[in-house]
């Protein structure tokens, strides 16, 4: 285990100020389900010397739903969100995704926001190979055993997929996040938050957060409240596995969203498919066409071509489910 200082923040301003004063050395600690075990197992290059504990900040675990949409606080656990009756009735896509994320125990500890900005579960990273995310300059996944955890749509530097189940769901719900730093707040879409592989302050990662920023709110607008929605996840074990491929589809009377998960370095919006789906009556042939189009241009690696078919199946089934 790497030793660290625990800083128990009193407020959001206090937390981001601490991050700002220790750029590159401090990280937010919330659910801690992965950060603490990474720290114990010494498996990432940039282990924080300071953990900024935000669980001491009051009033951040809210799940508030009103006519404009749903606000989810940075300390709301995945289980808090998926068990909320209003989320269940109006924003069910998030519930479908959230209940298939991780394991029951992890969902009781992990925050929804932490799920969005999770470190990837690539087995090369996790076994301390000197990869891009670990201070090295090789993607072992691109050349080695890439059957489960690497992109089928290419990559840059690191080929590890973004494995969140909730991010594709939020993406399809047009959710935004509020990001706070000492200099103020900004709003970002899920695509802006998770643009693919970034290198910020020498750290290779999948999100666009600056070292002194934290997510302080997730807003799900009511655009698709109550609309037909489906999250389909294909994985090895039904109990506890990352997606080999997933699809989050939502369809209202005049609009539609499709986001694919677990197949690219980011949650992969599929605008062409959305155009095909929008305003249409769903038939099995339409679903199949959208599924086939979803993997056009896929560039699988040596061992993950089987996941192209899985991605197609996930999209096809999720579209069929919103018929």
């Amino acid at each position: 285990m790497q030793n660290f200082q625990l800083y128990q923040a009193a407020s959001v301003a206090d937390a981001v100020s601490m991050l700002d004063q220790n750029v590159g050395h401090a990280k937010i600690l919330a659910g801690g389900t992965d950060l603490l075990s990474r720290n114990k197992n010494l498996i990432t290059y940039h282990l924080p010397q300071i953990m900024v504990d935000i669980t001491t900040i009051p009033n951040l675990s809210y799940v508030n739903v009103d006519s404009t949409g749903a606000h989810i606080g940075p300390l709301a656990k995945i289980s808090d969100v998926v068990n909320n009756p209003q989320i269940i009735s109006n924003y069910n896509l998030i519930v479908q995704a959230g209940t298939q994320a991780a394991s029951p125990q992890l969902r009781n500890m992990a925050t929804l926001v932490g799920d969005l900005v999770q470190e990837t579960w690539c087995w090369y990273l996790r076994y301390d190979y000197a990869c891009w995310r670990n201070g090295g300059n090789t993607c072992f996944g691109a050349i080695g055993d890439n059957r489960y955890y690497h992109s089928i749509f290419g990559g840059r530097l690191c080929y590890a997929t973004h494995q969140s189940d909730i991010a594709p769901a939020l993406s399809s719900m047009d959710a935004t996040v509020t990001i706070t730093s000492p200099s103020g707040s900004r709003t970002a879409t899920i695509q802006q938050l998770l643009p693919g592989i970034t290198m910020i302050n020498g750290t290779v990662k999948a999100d666009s957060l600056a070292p002194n920023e934290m997510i302080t709110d997730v807003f799900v607008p009511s655009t698709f409240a109550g609309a037909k929605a489906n999250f389909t996840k294909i994985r090895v074990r039904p109990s506890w596995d990352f997606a080999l491929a997933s699809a989050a589809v939502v369809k209202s009377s005049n609009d539609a969203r499709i986001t694919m998960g677990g197949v690219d370095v980011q949650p992969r919006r599929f605008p062409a498919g959305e155009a095909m789906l929008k305003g249409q009556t769903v038939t099995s042939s339409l679903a199949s066409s959208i599924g086939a189009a979803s993997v056009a241009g896929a560039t699988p690696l040596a061992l993950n071509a089987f996941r192209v078919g899985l991605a197609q199946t996930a999209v096809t089934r999720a579209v069929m489910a919103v018929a």
Partner: protein
Amino acid sequence: MSTPLRVVGNQNVIRPDGFDKVKGQAIFASDISLPGMLWAGVKMSPYPRARIEKIDVSAARRAGYTVITANDIPTGLRTALRWILTPEGQNVNYAGEPVAAVAAPTESQAEDALSLINVTYTPLPFTLSILDALQPTAPQLDPGSPNNILAAAGGVLAEGTAVSTQTRIVRGDINAGFAQADVIVEDQLSTPTLSHTNMESRACVAQWVNGKLTMWISNQGPHGLMRSLASTYNLSLSSTGAAGTGGSAASNVRVMGGGTGVAGMTQGDKGGLTAESIICATLALKAGVPVKYFPTRMDNSLNSSKRYPVLGYVKIGAQKSTGLLTAIHARYLTNPGAYGTSGPSGSLGDIQDAYTCPNALFEGIAVKTNLYSFAGAFRDVGETQGHFIMEGPMDQMAEKLGLDPVKFRYMNMQQITPSGPLKQQDSGQLYTGFGQPITTQKVAQLFGWDTRWKGWNNYKNQTGDVRTGIGMAIMHMNKGNMSNPMASDVTILPDGTIQSANGISEHGSGMKGVIVVIVAEILGVNAADVNLVNYGDTDFTRDAGGQGGSRAARSAGMGAAAGAAAALSNLYALAVPYINTKFNLNVKPTDLSTLGKQIFVTASPTTTVAWTDVLKGTKGVTGVGNFFVPTGAAGNFTGRTDQTAMAEVQVDMATGNIKVLNYAACFGIGRVLWAKGLENQFLGGFSGAGGGSALYESELRDPITGKYINANIHDYGLMTWLDTPDPEKMQVTWNEYVDGFQTQGGGGYAAGNLTLPSTDKVWGPYGARGIGEPSVGMVAATIANAVYNATGARLKTIPFRPETVLAAIKAAGTPPTITVPPIDATNVPPGGVNEAF
């Protein structure tokens, strides 16, 4: 005439250690904390093969940590057969191989100490697969094993482990057999490396006081380990302590291996003198204070023995007119890892007797690689691999013959029934199974095979993504003997309290339940009346053998029975004069019976006295029991457990996901001792090792670096309870067949030391047989055959993860590619053929 059994097989007996475990009160080795105790850590090689140029421990020692290297390991263990810590100038041969160990005040400091050790390696070329290792240009791992074909015999780590490097079993003439055949099936199948992944790692705590070594450890055989440690560290055993013939309180080694000392759990990686026990004891000796080694998940995976991978070629021939097999040829190449000493006999030894085919050749070699540490037991010693590779082709043959797979098996299996004559097996042992025909009939009835079987065209008649099908497999498992004698002490205190002292461990398999059932049956009390004392503590118990080979219920069970019978004998010796005086009778011990802590005259049940009256004024009675398998009769006393399984599966053709809807099995169990324990073994055997390893589990290595990539529970693919079939859909039945002890009169066990008439067909307490390993072995083959019935795709490698299933669906109907080379004069290992095992 036998007395009906009251406790044996009783559904109401609960797990004696259940409450402690559920409440978190059971003490495991990792819970032991002693004053001044240090934590151990192990420095491992990151390379699958490399020369160790230098191990620099000076910085760690300067920092005040206790450090050991090869030179500190007792000399007897310092051999290339398996270094405990590999020395400078030698090669490491798998990623994770230990080269040094440290002890430090805290776990975190142990990590710091490891980071101060600097090892200089020269990386060398390596091989991971059997076929690569057989290439003429492959790196040679061991000069004693030319062409990487295992030749070394012997073993340092497992007490009494049989070693055979090549297997060649011949009967009849396969060429003639294939000439008679008009249907041939030829195929190639394989199995992966599996890691035990017990929830409890191989934890131990070692303490030296005045030259005596005490060890708290999760180990399958406390007494065997005690003797091995004594030999390793040149410590004396007491004159009466050897081999369980007496207590060993004067021994200079004390092992607390499960139960009162510590609880544990295992699937086969905790037998014998494990590397952890040596590292821990050596560190404690050097540090002069107690040391705990609680391996991390990764250490535990990498330095464990493994279920070994097998690459198997099978060719079988049969006659269409009769449906009978005419020839079987099985050629298995096994991968024993870098330091494994076991050959293919574990996988070939049992399948040879499953079918009565007159012409057969079962042959195999073991090929050393840098894939992993060493081959070992994993809820069997190779039978699962052997049957998976054989039962797929057998299913294909049934289809080619146009026969129901049950009928095909039935026509070709050993036609032995319990009442039938003993038959000399091809392996030379007497067949003492409980009749595959009976287990097959029973499970077919339970499962409803005849109404559910929709024929070989079932998959062709289905459309859509989700298909269902059923399948079956048989298994023929031979588990060996225990060493004589099997012993225990049972004490009845003056107030009637019963204490049973047993030297075996409890690793979740339910030995405690088995023992209390047997003792209670013999003493005429309830299971809850039997108190287990000093369980698994070698200072205060006798040896009844270890937990392994599905034989503990028989060996420790016989030891427990012998102790109870001896205690009862001593109690009757006091009761006879008491009764004769009180009632003015002239009875003998054989005239007495006991029930409910009352002794009565069998012929006059109202003539009764209480135990407490008989024991008044005494210090109680202790029975020392020893059970001996009769000399020269060992061949009669192997414990075969025949079994048949059936499953219904649902397969998603687009995702490759398999769902097991229903799984049923019948075991020729002989006798159910502890009913809940047996059901637990069946359910746990499916979810813990059988179904989990069929569907999900396998150890993987990076093909480029040869390093581990999934030494954790998630990526390794352990099955969770949420992935198992609905328990309501898990069906188990058994075939009980008993003679032998039960016919001896009284409660079955009269009194005194127990011996068996050499004519008995079965042995084991009340005729019981093992279930631990048999509960696992057929699962993969059964699921694979059901998947074929659902999809038309043959699964030829384990596990059945989506990529494997989708590839099989794509390849359905194409002929197999055979890459297994012949075994001939060029690759028969020195030392020749080992046919006897």
